[in-house]
């Protein structure tokens, strides 16, 4: 998809005024956030699982080339084909070539974020293939021609009413002439429409939650069973996966699976977890004849060699966005590309450049909730701060911000001057605001006070307290 991260501010303003989106985001707190919390409280081993997960993934990244080669050898042994792609362009070309070689006409897809990342749907459609998303949320968005707004629940911003309208408009010609308004009826209608697609598709495309070096398997985690049908029924299966999805052993995957469902949706395990290895075997009753894996780099090897390496531990659970106060107010579309929330604010600038996505690392209050809940302990606020300083060093932030920062730096490095300038202002504010505790309006700070109160300074200043403490020590 065409990114529009550079319009983040306008996107965010618009999102704040969408009542349906706001209602959906409130629901997120009650659903995913509460669910994760329940899982956290009932599993005493949660913290030690996080530590171990981090160790496993760091070990894998340290030896990434070797584990990818092991994985490749097992894929080939099991009769599959592995294709390497360093850019989205290459990945799209490979997928289209496989589909053409198979003389395919129809492609069904199971939800895959890397598929979104490389824009595979548009490319396949442009090449003349009929593409159908089979994850219900992704299918709804395909009908609406919208990108996902959440990596786990892509259509979280859509209301039942909107879905009813979409289904009526797109399914009428299939004989579904009644506008369904019950959730169960909508799910059932999609089941019937998509069942036909499953049974007739030539190619099934899925992503991979993990790739297993030990066996050459790809793992997909779903509740709907769509990914499993996509892996089973068509005659050709194509897995798109990024190079950071590989883990050494089945046991490693088991540990990560214990964290994934709990962190994502508050489930100990999803309805379906499927390990697929190669095409159907000679005597197998069903399964595809061809099994392809397209292994995609897309800037990940650059991240591996930089201070951004911890981001490659990400298992795409979405906990960071579920717990992010910024995402919680503006939803996923405002971020302007495939990955929203804290993880997206790190990944998007690294994949599209700070030119396009420079606003995203700044759309963060550094409150740290994302790092606290991240199952693989990615220091997201630190990475966002590093991106901000990259931006500053590359002179990519606004000139006003640069002037203000230099001025502040100059003053802050001179403690006496700093005190002289700030003390009178702080004591005035503190006296004026003593009664109400805050200000509804403030000259020069209307950007803040337009949408919230400015709290009055409480107690003495940091410097005063520091000096007091130092004196007390002596």
């Amino acid at each position, binding site marked *: 998809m065409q990114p529009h991260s550079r319009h983040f501010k306008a996107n965010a303003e618009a999102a704040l005024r969408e009542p349906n989106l706001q209602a959906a985001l409130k629901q997120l707190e009650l*659903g995913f956030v509460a669910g994760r919390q329940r899982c956290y409280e009932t*599993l*005493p*081993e949660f913290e030690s*699982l996080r530590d*171990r997960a981090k160790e496993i993934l760091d070990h894998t990244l*340290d*030896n*990434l*080339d070797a584990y*990818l080669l*092991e994985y490749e050898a097992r894929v080939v042994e*099991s009769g599959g084909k592995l294709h*390497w792609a*360093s850019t989205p362009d290459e990945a799209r070309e*490979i997928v289209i070539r496989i589909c053409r070689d198979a003389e395919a006409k129809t492609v069904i897809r199971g939800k895959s974020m890397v598929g979104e990342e490389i824009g595979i749907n548009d490319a396949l459609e442009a090449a003349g293939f009929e593409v159908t998303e089979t994850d*219900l949320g992704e299918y*709804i968005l395909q009908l609406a021609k919208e990108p996902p707004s959440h990596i786990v*629940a892509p*259509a979280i911003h859509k*209301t039942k009413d909107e879905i009813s309208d979409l289904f009526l408009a797109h399914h009428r010609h299939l004989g579904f002439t009644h506008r369904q308004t019950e*959730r*169960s009826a*909508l*799910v*059932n209608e999609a089941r019937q429409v*998509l069942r036909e697609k*499953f049974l007739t598709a030539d190619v099934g495309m899925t992503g991979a939650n993990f790739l297993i070096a*030990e066996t050459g*398997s790809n793992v997909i985690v779903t509740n*709907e*069973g*769509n990914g*499993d*049908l996509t892996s*089973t029924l068509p005659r050709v299966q194509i897995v798109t996966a990024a*190079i950071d999805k590989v883990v*050494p*052993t089945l*046991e*490693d995957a*088991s*540990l990560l*699976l214990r964290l994934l469902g709990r962190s994502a949706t508050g489930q100990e*395990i999803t*309805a*379906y977890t*499927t*390990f*697929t290895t*190669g095409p159907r*075997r000679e005597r*197998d*009753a*069903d*399964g595809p004849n061809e099994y392809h894996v397209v*292994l995609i780099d897309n800037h990940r090897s*650059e991240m*591996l*060699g930089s201070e951004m390496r911890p981001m490659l531990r990400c298992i795409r659970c979405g906990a960071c966005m579920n717990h992010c106060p910024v995402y919680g107010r503006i939803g996923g579309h405002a971020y302007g590309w495939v990955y929203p929330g804290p993880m997206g604010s790190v990944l998007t600038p690294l994949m599209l450049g700070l030119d396009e996505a420079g606003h995203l690392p700044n759309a963060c209050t550094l409150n740290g909730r994302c790092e606290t809940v991240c199952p693989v302990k990615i220091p997201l606020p630190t990475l966002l701060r590093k991106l901000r300083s990259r931006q500053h060093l590359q002179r990519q932030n606004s000139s006003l911000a640069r002037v203000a920062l230099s001025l502040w730096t100059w003053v802050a490095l001179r403690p006496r001057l700093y005190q002289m300038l700030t003390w009178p202002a702080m004591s005035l504010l503190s006296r004026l605001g003593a009664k109400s505790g805050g200000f509804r309006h403030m000259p020069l700070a209307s950007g803040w006070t337009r949408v919230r109160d400015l709290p009055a300074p409480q107690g003495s200043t940091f410097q005063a307290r520091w000096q007091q403490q130092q004196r007390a020590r002596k």
Partner: protein
Amino acid sequence: MSDTREQVLGNIRSALGRGELDKARVAELRDHIARHPRHIEPAFNEPPQQRFQQKLEAAEASFAALDTLPEVVAEVERYLDACAAPKHLVTSGDEWLAALQWPESIELRPWVAKGDEKVSLTAAHCGIAETGTLLLVSGEHKPTSLNFLPDYHIVVLRADQLLLRMEDAWDSLRTSFAQMPRSVNFISGPSKTADVEQTVEYGAHGPRYLHVILVG
């Protein structure tokens, strides 16, 4: 595309600040894979069978425990009657399933599901108590489509196949098969979705109902 392969591997190595790993290190990593050490395995106190049943029922699967294998026939008939489901079953080709004394009222057809079958009956490779999970594998007489296409999925599991954790299932697969079966399906309840307004609905694409029969 072998150029791309070398390029990606080369980029990874230079990012890691080194060249190709030496043979000794690669051998160590292969050994690590071969040993596949277990990690932290969360403790639970309930008896395995109790936990297995509780977890499955919490995920909206139904459950029956029987003493002997021949009782499976009556249980399947009872379940189909209770659900008012048709008595034509597609089944996995397990000999012991076919060897049961099925009445004429129930029709069994060992075959790949085509998409319009209502009920499937399959045997599980094993069960996992920790999460209330069934493990089914593909094979000559074990079509994967049976696990996903019909509306009702009935799975039979022997009590001695009930293991504690996923890691035990890996050991069991390693013992039973020289190579990972093409499809290894962990199933922990009927198909569901929360994609319409974050509210759970059952029967998204896979079975609407999952019935587990534990024998022994």
